[in-house]
């Protein structure tokens, strides 16, 4: 279980820059998510850390020891690929034992560790099955066991849950996070799923267009995104309200709100749907429910006024119908102001 530090990592394939100037740290035993849209260079970054791709510049430290020149088989960073890549010609047992066999661990010790690992991932009794006989979730657990069997210094997971169906995905996430905590395994998880990143990580590094835009705890990244780009990427539905700050007051069509320590200028306020509250209104209410999307645990509404549309996530205790008149209040203390203007489509 090592502490990982990445310094100024860059890589280009030909003229195409994949990642540039990457810096982050993962404390020993923690899980860091690399979150970003597809094509952001997440997998390349992971392969660089594993030693499969040579970076153009920069250095990686495992416990303060530089490892860029160390070949992958000696580095101790085990990568679990998105599609698990179990060796199809080996049984589950042989797969899990692979790393140990390669390291020359004697047979009796090997089979003890394999049994232990299979027990850990609840795959006892599958020792002599071949990968093609396993379901997706089982393959994933075997892949995890195979990676953990070699006691890696760093575990690298590349979109590990994206090939599973939603229900299994949820339980595998819990299972993996649980296992990672229990073994105090330093882990870097690559994902494009912001919910997954929020739920699983100790810290999140947001990777967009080949560079890291923000590193922080899930709460930090969600509530205090460093830029509109980051905010855009976290959360599905958002409200954007344009306005102007003058003398510490943000004025927008929704009203005037205090914005202390904010320089004067044009701003876009980003308001998350859960910070828009609606309540039963009367004939004089300005807002009308435009559409309703019942999502079980919460209900999404779109509410309209003559000049504005807002998305709102409300609890399911009271359900409004399309066309209902409602009152809307916005919790502006949770809103985020970004100076950069953006075109919305």
């Amino acid at each position, binding site marked *: 279980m090592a502490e990982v530090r990445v310094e100024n990592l860059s890589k280009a394939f030909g003229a195409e820059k994949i990642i540039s100037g990457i810096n982050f740290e993962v404390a020993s035993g923690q899980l860091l998510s690399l979150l970003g849209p597809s094509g952001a260079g997440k997998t390349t970054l992971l*392969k660089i850390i*594993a*030693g*499969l791709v040579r970076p153009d510049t920069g250095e990686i430290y495992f416990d303060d020891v530089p490892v860029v020149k160390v*070949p*992958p*088989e*000696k*580095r101790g*960073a*085990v*990568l679990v*690929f998105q*599609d*698990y*890549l*179990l*060796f*199809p*010609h080996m049984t589950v047992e042989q797969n899990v034992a*692979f*790393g140990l*066999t*390669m*390291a020359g661990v004697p047979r009796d010790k090997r089979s003890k560790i394999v049994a232990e690992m299979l027990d850990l991932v609840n795959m006892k009794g599958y020792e002599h099955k*071949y*990968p*093609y*006989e396993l379901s997706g979730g089982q*393959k994933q657990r075997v892949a995890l066991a*195979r*990676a953990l069997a*070699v006691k890696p210094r760093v575990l*690298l997971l590349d979109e590990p849950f994206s090939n599973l169906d939603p229900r299994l995905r949820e339980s595998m996430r819990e299972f993996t996070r649980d296992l990672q905590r229990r073994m105090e395994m330093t882990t870097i998880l690559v994902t494009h799923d912001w919910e997954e990143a929020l739920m699983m990580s100790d810290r999140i590094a947001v990777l967009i267009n080949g560079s890291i835009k923000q590193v922080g705890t899930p709460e930090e990244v969600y509530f205090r995104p460093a830029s509109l780009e980051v905010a855009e990427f976290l959360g599905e539905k958002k409200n954007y309200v344009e306005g102007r700050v003058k003398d510490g007051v943000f004025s927008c069509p929704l009203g005037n709100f205090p914005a202390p320590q904010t320089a004067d200028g044009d701003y876009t306020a980003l308001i998350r749907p859960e910070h828009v509250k609606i309540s039963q209104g009367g004939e004089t209410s300005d807002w009308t429910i435009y559409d309703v999307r019942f999502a079980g645990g919460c209900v999404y509404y779109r509410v309209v006024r003559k000049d504005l549309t807002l998305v709102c996530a409300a609890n399911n205790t009271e359900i409004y119908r399309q066309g209902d008149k409602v009152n809307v209040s916005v919790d502006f203390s949770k809103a985020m102001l970004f100076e950069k203007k953006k075109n919305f489509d």
Partner: protein
Amino acid sequence: MERRFVNLLLYVAIGGILFPIVVLMLWAFAREWPWPHLFPTGFSVRGWIHLFNPTTGALPVLLYSVMLSSLVAFITVTLSLPAARALAFYDFRGKRALEIFILSPMVIPTTAVAMGIHVNFIRIGLADTFWGVVICHLLPCIPYGIKILTGVFEALGDRIEQQARVLGAGRLKTYLYVTLPLISPGLITASIMAFVVSFSQYFLTFLIGGGRVMTFSMLLFPFIQGGDRHLSAVFSLAFIGTVLLWVFALEVLFRRWVKKGQYFYM
């Protein structure tokens, strides 16, 4: 309608393969088969006696030939492996040109270059030798070996090797424990192809071997040319049978290795 058409094609194809073999079989036991008889008019095993007779020496030639072609197949696969892997996994300057160069023996007839090879082989003392023949047989075999194995490597992808590497296997161990077992079906196919191409070589063997290196196809050729249908048929059947037996032996030999469920996809 369509189904019927497909069936018809199938019958034609099967007939096209079976009919000549049936004719060969009949000829192999025919003393004479004059027109307009539908079947041979006399029975004979003259050719078979000739084939198995220890003094006429057809069987030793057959064994020698099998050994030579097996060696050619082995060398072809050994040389094709690294080339195919490089072509499948790496991008480099001039890759396309190299590919065309490697496959060129498929389109340029060996006859066209055999002369030059012969002259040079005489100069370095390889003409009229076993190894001279082996080396020049590689020429038409290697393109097939590389082409087949490149396809196999491409289907396999390089990520499974990367997976082995991060789990602690060095390059050599990765190759031995992961790559080779996984591409073994392709190895067998490439070996068979190379064996058949080498086993059927007549012209190259004749020119480079100078008649001193005697392969089975060189034995077969004069019979066909001389119009002895009975002997030609017997030797042709022996030819086909040898290839089939060789393929079968290879499959049996590697069956342990090529297990069920061993696919590139999972």
